[in-house]
């Protein structure tokens, strides 16, 4: 099984630099994971490296398809608060 990257990726290269298996590559608009190369870091590290450094919530999915870093888990901003503030900005 493999981790994967969705289009929330901001192309910061961080995961690319830390993958022990060179499973991550730069595709045309974002980074992607080669599922044949990804080992979930088993045997190399306790935690999946890409998911441990990615700064963008929701950009990396676990093999189960869940966000490895769900909303609010990296920024500390409660998702509800973010929605409110965004709505406020749009209403201006």
């Amino acid at each position, binding site marked *: 099984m493999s981790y994967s990257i969705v289009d929330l990726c*901001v*192309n*910061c*290269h*961080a995961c*690319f*630099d*830390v993958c022990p298996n060179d499973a991550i590559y730069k595709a045309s608009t974002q980074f992607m994971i080669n599922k044949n190369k990804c080992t979930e870091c088993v045997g190399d*590290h*306790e*935690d999946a*490296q890409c998911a*441990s*450094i990615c*700064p*963008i919530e929701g950009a990396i999915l676990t093999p189960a398809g869940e966000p490895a870093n769900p909303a609010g888990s*990296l*920024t*500390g*901003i409660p998702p509800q*608060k*973010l929605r409110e*503030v965004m709505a*406020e*900005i749009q209403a*201006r």
Partner: protein
Amino acid sequence: MTDMAPQNQALEIPSGGCSSGSCGSSDDAMAHLPESIRERVNNHPCYSEEAHHFYARMHVAVAPACNIQCHYCNRKYDCANESRPGVVSELLTPSQATKKVLAVAANVPQMSVVGIAGPGDPLANPEKTLETFRAIYKEAPDIKLCVSTNGLALPDVVDDLAELNVDHVTITINCVDPKVGAKIYPWIYWENKRIRGEEAAKILIERQQLGLEMLVERGVLVKVNSVMIPGVNDKHLEEVSKIVKAKGAFLHNVMPLIAEPEHGTFYGVMGQRSPNKAELQELQDSCSGDMNMMRHCRQCRADAVGLLGEDRGHEFTMDKVEAMDIDYKQAMEFRAEVHSSIEEQRNAMKKVATVSLDAIGGVKQAQKKTRPVLMAVATEGQGVINQHFGHATEFLVYEASSDGVRFIGPRKVDQYCIGSSECDDGESKLSMNIRTLEGCEAVLCAKIGLEPWGQLEEAGIEPNGEHAYEPIEEAIAAVYLEMVEAGKADIEVETTQKATA
């Protein structure tokens, strides 16, 4: 560079941009530093306000990845707080970056410093940064190199940086207490794990302090940047200032937090406020007692790209750079010539400034008690008043008093807009300009329109176009003397008014 003035002379002649002990590059504030460092700093475009007018630096974006998260940063956009280019900026490979640097250096001889500041942390994946430095050091040894970092990976590369003759390193240190740090840094990536809370802050702080010590040991200049976050680290930064100075940082630069909800940062969304101008100046003043504070930093106003202006920036896009054939040996000779004529010009201006500052000394001798007055200047550089009021995107604020003229800091006109129609409205731009000038009693510019003239007067700020193209300090001194003679600066007149910025 021409020879430095002998020491006794340097003490007599105010060094152009700074004439008081509180500016980062003045002799007083540098007194505790070894002579060799003082000399390096006084002619440094990044650290001497006056030298800043003549030289420029450029940034190349080669380092996209970051290894920590700060609450004032959103990796999706440019970082407003650390003048970090965002992930959307043109990312270059080390060899592209080197080509671009050589092309700009050959065509813009004023460019004397190349920095790597991001978009991420330049040392998070140090190879790209080091490779770029190696190539520039080899091909263009007349260019100074600098790097900015959060410090986490710094101790690992200190030896490489020293070997490549890196001129200075800027470390962003916002705290020395993990309890404070936990409110600023939600996580770090360390030893293959994402670490959070106080544990993360403790590691980061230890690495920053270790990196600082190691650099100082190896003779690399270290500047410390801090972001002032009211209620989080504002009180704490005085302690930070003491500690980093004791360890040998030569300059401490406190910057105000920039946080707006639309930035999408933790602080922006959670409504953390920014410090106001008075709070910032108060902290800078209280730190300057025991630390060299840098007030002129406007987060790289003098980027070579900025110096080039929009009209020349397009000459250095990567495809054009690739097509250029640069003979750097020849370029280096040309650069040396330009630098020596710049030095002549600087020396000439220092002499002029001395004359009018002497006149201010006269006020002191007359034993007339006068109060300090803040004045703003619109300038495009070269140390003269040469900008139209309406074109200014920032103003330089100076304080004139019987002690002389001292530089307080730049004030950016708030350009932040989220696309509301108000923004393009000439009138609201004008009122934004006027708001920026709060606390100033005069604004000196090359030219000014009638409408702003009236509104400025209404706001109690005297517009002044009489000193167009004159050196800044001399002009301010002259305006101050006029005010003194007219009795406008008498202490008795306005005892309650205290200058703030």
